[in-house]
């Protein structure tokens, strides 16, 4: 075996976005020897692109209660969310937001000096009665403000970052316990073993499996891919959120906060069509619902533009003052990426892949839980996940806007606490590394180094994106998804033979993209096969052949195993921590 350099820490965090850095702060401040690995400098993580807000029932503007927030989240999830995790998140939200404020996050303010809150999709008062202002905002740069604040706080805590290190694979021992990761130092091209007592994946989403996505280039599902290859099942990967307002053609996000501030959607006839579909919440219905309505308008010939392929987001009636003060970045994006100034003209928008509801199965403590010996949920010792790569599951079949940033800080912190507890109580000394700990990662790199005559990475990646975009979109049907399964399996074979011309070591981005594609294909396979398998319509999974939600047969989480492309299930948690169960009902808005 090749001699691979090793480094040892108590805790390793992979990913330095909102979840990773919130966890890092918890661990650093507790004096745990922690390494944070990130393939980009922390403030370049995709959390930075979140715009509209972070939710908490602070009641700064209107009366609000965390129980209402919980109800909205359960209903938003189309009853696939785990109600214990949802209760935990919504109840913890106010203190999590106040903590961010104390960390120095530059929230906008109301006259009383408290945090400004705006309306958002699916946020209601009194169990769905009327819209409520719950989204705490820093203009339309809430993610940027949050991410920079967490980075700054980690500078204060002296957190040790390994910047531009790409994690390659999870290391599990013979008991199945997680004892570290392998990682590539991008500047040197060297592979290291990072030996740890506890590993947290906070690697973000994988929206890059779609051709049109609001997601950054780096969102390649690295944690999902590493987990899948290490035998961890993936939960609910059929559920992908299409954000109603991506800039048509460019994919760049336009926050729901635009509609929160009073913006409206219009079809080609100038009709505010959401009034027809959602009489109470109108343009502020949840995202799965609004995206379907928009897609229907286009399908039925009422799309705008010369190809009738998008709808219009009108906000000029808000006036320059509101737009410049509350939505300055939106104006900048619209001018740069849509070529329109929203003070004068509407923005052309289209539902665009935005968020992965599924992921690595965890409980609300951030512990990774998998079926074992007949039990549906057994802890994988030493393994934690938080943020978009994890599935707690608080978002179920459809996430509410602003619950993603909340998810990051709530579960980043709880995962950090769980790790501290585990390291102190259960793992005072490191478990030994298996003898072959780095072999698999080294073989992946050796394969790339030796590969000749293979296909280019970009070409294969485009093939993945083409299949997923056309077969796992807003509207799905059996025949199309069956084709998608066949096609993505064929692409998976091609991924095994990708070739890079660049074989050098220092900052070899071609190699990194090839390794990322290994992760993308795991996500794409899980997505396509889980989607084809679910014979109902729920949340973001809208099935033309099974148009109703089927609670009797399908109120259960999908678990997808990469090996053998096997599907299993686990029950939805119907027992909240302290309050009454919220029973399913029809979702109308």
């Amino acid at each position, binding site marked *: 075996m090749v001699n691979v350099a090793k480094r040892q820490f108590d805790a390793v965090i992979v990913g330095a976005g909102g979840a990773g850095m919130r966890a890092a702060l918890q661990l650093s401040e507790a004096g745990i020897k922690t390494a944070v690995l990130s393939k980009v400098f922390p403030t370049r993580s995709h959390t930075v692109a979140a715009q509209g807000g972070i939710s908490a029932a602070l009641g700064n503007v209107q009366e609000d209660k965390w129980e209402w927030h919980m109800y909205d989240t359960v209903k938003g999830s189309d009853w696939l969310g785990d109600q214990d995790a949802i209760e935990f998140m919504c109840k913890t939200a106010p203190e999590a937001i106040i903590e961010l*404020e104390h960390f120095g996050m530059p929230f906008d*303010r109301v006259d009383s000096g408290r945090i400004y809150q705006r309306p958002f999709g699916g946020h209601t008062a009194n169990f769905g009665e009327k819209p409520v202002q719950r989204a705490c905002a820093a203009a339309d740069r809430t993610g940027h403000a949050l991410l920079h604040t967490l980075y700054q706080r980690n500078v204060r805590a002296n957190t040790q970052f390994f910047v531009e290190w790409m994690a390659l694979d999870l290391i599990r021992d013979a008991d199945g316990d997680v004892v570290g990761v392998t990682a590539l130092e991008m500047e040197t091209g060297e592979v290291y073993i990072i030996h740890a007592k506890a590993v947290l994946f906070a690697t973000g989403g994988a929206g890059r499996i779609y051709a049109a996505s609001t997601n950054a280039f780096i969102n390649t599902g690295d944690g999902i891919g590493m987990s899948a290859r290490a035998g961890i099942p993936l939960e609910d990967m059929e559920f992908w959120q299409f954000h109603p307002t991506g800039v048509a053609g*460019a994919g760049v996000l336009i926050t729901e906060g635009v509609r929160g501030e009073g913006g409206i959607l219009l079809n080609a006839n100038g009709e505010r069509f959401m009034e027809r579909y959602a009489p109470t919440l109108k343009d502020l219905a949840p995202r799965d619902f609004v995206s379907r309505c928009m897609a229907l308008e286009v399908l039925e010939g009422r799309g705008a533009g010369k190809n009738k392929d998008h709808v219009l987001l009108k906000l000029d009636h808000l006036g320059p003052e509101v737009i410049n003060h509350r939505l300055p970045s939106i104006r900048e994006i619209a001018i740069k990426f849509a070529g329109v100034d929203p003070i004068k003209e509407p923005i052309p928008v289209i539902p665009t892949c935005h968020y992965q509801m599924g992921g690595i199965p965890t409980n609300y403590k951030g512990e990774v839980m998998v079926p074992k010996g007949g039990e549906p949920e057994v802890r994988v010792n030493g393994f934690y996940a938080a943020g978009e790569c994890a599935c707690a599951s608080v978002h179920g079949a459809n996430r509410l806007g602003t619950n993603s940033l909340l998810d990051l800080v709530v579960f980043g912190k709880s995962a950090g606490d769980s790790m501290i507890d585990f390291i102190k109580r259960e793992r005072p000394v490191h478990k030994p590394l298996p003898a072959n700990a780095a072999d698999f990662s080294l073989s992946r790199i050796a394969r790339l180094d030796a590969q000749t005559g293979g296909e280019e990475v970009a070409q294969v990646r485009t093939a993945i994106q083409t299949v997923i975009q056309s077969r796992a979109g807003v509207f799905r049907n059996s025949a199309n998804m069956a084709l998608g399964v066949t096609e993505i399996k064929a692409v998976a074979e091609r991924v095994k033979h990708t070739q890079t011309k660049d074989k050098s070591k220092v900052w070899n981005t071609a190699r990194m993209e090839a390794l990322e594609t290994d992760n993308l294909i795991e996500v794409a396979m899980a997505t396509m096969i889980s989607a084809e398998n679910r014979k109902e319509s729920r949340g973001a999974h809208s099935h033309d052949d099974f148009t109703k939600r089927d609670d009797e047969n399908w109120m259960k989480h999908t678990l997808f195993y990469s090996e053998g492309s096997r599907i299993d299930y686990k029950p939805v948690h119907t027992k909240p921590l302290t309050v009454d169960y919220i029973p399913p009902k029809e979702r109308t808005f």
Partner: protein
Amino acid sequence: MKMQFKIYRYNPDVDAKPYMQDIEVELEPSDKKLLDALVRLKTVDDSLSFRRSCREGVCGSDAMNINGKNGLACVTDIVSLKQPVEIRPLPGLPVIRDLIVDMTQFFKQYNSIKPYVINDTPPPSHERLQSPKDREELDGLYECILCACCSTSCPSFWWNPDKFVGPAGLLAAYRFIADTRDTAINERLDNLEDPYRLFRCHSIMNCVDVCPKHLNPTKAIGKIKELMVKRIA
């Protein structure tokens, strides 16, 4: 449409020294921004290395020197560029490979200003209150994306990257000085009272000229200098 480039190339594994590469690429109609063109170019030559992530001007990864001026590739319109487009790494920082520079010194300076709110009074159970007017003081300061376009266009930073904090770091310094929740103004001014750290800024204003977020570090630096003067008086 074909697009012509002159790109700075250097791969320490292969090249004895850096060189300028003449290369062209056939663009697709969907390619609008310089970053789109570079990504397209990478399909022709996969060894071309550059950082990129959000592709919408908010993560700060793809700062580079474009036809002589620092900027973000992802928000630079292809049609605005004179061809062949000359692309170089950010000036003044060590080049690791191609357009990838070593930003250690840049972040070291940022960290040196203690970029976090300092307030030792125990926080209340709710927010530390701040009026909308006080909060407005942070506008134009907190939006920095740490792309380093400003600091690497600043002659003072080129000459003294180890001693002069640079425009990005000083903008951040003033962001915390201006925050009504921060109680360490004196400590922060002490930290900058030095012939180099603050006073190497000679108001050349290259930083203002290149900032892709339209921020004004020179103005922030001026305000810090004012506070220094007031403090002495």
